[in-house]
């Protein structure tokens, strides 16, 4: 009971700042958009039916899942050595290294993306080096396409994966690796046969968290996609602000939210599993 009382203020904020607007969004999704584009108050599932009956929605969902899934996987794999290094460091340096691992979060996402645009652009740093050294005659297209979006997304997701992995790997008992070494296993064998299996739940939790963040990412596909990258979040933006089809945008947002809630539940289950195994 005391716990609920202590949580009451946070729950009240959550209700006002999240649940109430979500309820409003759901209500808008049940309105109707007329042929002229005007919004009409109604209680209809027309927008959901239109979205679910459109093959482009399936394409969008697949694009979104593929982009988020692959970017989350790469971010998790790249984050693992960072988390292992933090774990292996002496307690004196551990805090500082962990801070460096998540340092990108201290900079605004938009500022980081503008930085990437300066690096990856046709006149950017990489293309200047490639063309200056004679390796290429024309710019290598690293931006305004899926490649650019993946690079930007991996970079933005990595700090979150580092955070989850540092927490997950911190629970591993180092004596198990010491025992493997004592029994004659080399470093690589110890890593592959002991550390990696024990870290699997943490890796899965990191992947799921970054997957959820990737599914709802908007700024990266919008700024680095050059209008060639269509995912759920950019489509919601277009429906709301270009088509002014609020019921359609709200319905797509509710579908995305439903998918995210499912994934968060999955993440909660795996995190519990990770805790038990550790």
């Amino acid at each position: 009971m005391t716990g609920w009382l202590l949580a009451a203020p946070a729950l009240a904020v959550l209700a006002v700042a999240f649940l109430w607007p979500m309820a409003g969004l759901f209500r808008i999704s049940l309105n109707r958009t007329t042929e002229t584009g005007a919004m009409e108050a109604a209680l209809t599932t027309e927008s959901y039916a239109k979205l679910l009956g459109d093959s482009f929605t399936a394409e969008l969902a697949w694009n979104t899942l593929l982009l988020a899934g692959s970017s989350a996987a790469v971010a998790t794999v790249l984050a693992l050595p960072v988390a292992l290094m933090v774990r292996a460091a002496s307690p004196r340096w551990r805090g500082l290294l962990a801070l460096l691992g998540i340092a990108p979060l201290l900079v605004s996402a938009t500022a980081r993306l503008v930085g990437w645009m300066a690096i990856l652009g046709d006149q950017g740093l990489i293309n200047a080096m490639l063309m200056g050294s004679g390796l290429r005659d024309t710019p290598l297209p690293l931006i305004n396409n899926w490649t650019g979006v993946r690079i930007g997304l991996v970079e933005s997701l990595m700090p979150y994966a580092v955070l989850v992995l540092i927490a997950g790997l911190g629970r591993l008992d180092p004596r198990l690796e010491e025992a493997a070494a004592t029994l004659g296993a080399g470093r690589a064998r110890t890593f592959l046969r002991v550390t990696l299996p024990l870290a699997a739940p943490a890796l899965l939790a990191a992947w799921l968290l970054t997957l959820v963040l990737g599914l709802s990412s908007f700024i990266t596909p919008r700024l680095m996609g050059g209008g060639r990258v269509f995912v759920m979040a950019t489509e919601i933006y277009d429906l709301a602000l270009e088509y002014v089809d609020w019921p359609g945008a709200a319905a797509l947002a509710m579908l995305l939210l439903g998918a995210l809630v499912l994934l968060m539940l999955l993440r909660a289950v795996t995190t519990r599993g990770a805790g038990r195994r550790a």
Partner: protein
Amino acid sequence: MTIWQGAVLGIAALAAVAAPASAQNSMTLMSYAGIFRENYTDTVVKPFAAKGAEVQFFEGGSSSQMLGTLRAQKADPQVDVVIMDVTTAALACAEGLVEPVRPAELPVLAQLAPMARSAGGSCGPAVTFDHLVMVYDTQKVQPAPASLMAMADPSQRGAVGLAAPPNIQGLAVTAMLANANGGDWKNIGAALPALKSIAANVQTFDPKPDGYSMILNDQLRFATGWNARAQLYRDQSKNRIGVVLPDEGTVFQINTINIVANAKNRGKAVEFVNHALSAAAQKAFTERMFYGPVNTEAGVTPEALGRTALAPEYRSKVIDVDWGEMQKLRDGWNQRWRREVISAAPR
């Protein structure tokens, strides 16, 4: 009565007296930010305020964001007058968010061009005319291009920024090419071959922050834009930005001015609309920012008029696009762009 109680009652009494007076003399205008706000404030708002009215300029973002604000404030409007794109204003009109026009209150309507009066339907009339242009880097593209197809030249690979539908510029370019190649702006099939050949050179279908800035930053050599802003960027860049009304013709983008339904300061709003549409305000704004005037008695200098689509030599190039009809077509156009134009231009 304590001192505090007296003070509170005194302040309340002052507020009760002051509030109606303040409300009668002030009004809130919602429209675009940036250079539109700066120039509109200087040339239209300040002369109106000089007569004793206080005008708050509320930056509404894009037209669709302004529509969102009107929808959110429907029960308690905080804005009195809104200037927004004609297609979005039509939605606001259909949803009852803005007032039907009352000619008896707006004598200035008699001075407006017929197209300006009819643009807003039963709601507010046009307040500015703008049109789509092609912009290019005069330092890198020579001789000056005349046709949209200059963007399809193989030497411009990766140097073109072309906004795709549902962005209104993408819709306008499609209509222009359809009209030029098929004689009917609605026939997207006639536009697609030309669009595909331009798309092969496109670096981005979503220029950010806009085509003008990307040209000035050496990221692009060609883009599409709106004439008024393009002309201003041309002046500011000392002619680095070139502005072309293409051989294929152009399409008007019209902003309308509307009084918000249940506006709190309606009296001032009516006065402001009369002022904004007046010959003096229209002349001042056109000569500053090159939006085409809607008032036929504006007396704009030939030099300024020559930089708008209302110049005699350009009038025949304006394609009569019905944006209401476009509203019905754009979903299909958007799908065809995605499947046949953008997908044919991978990077």
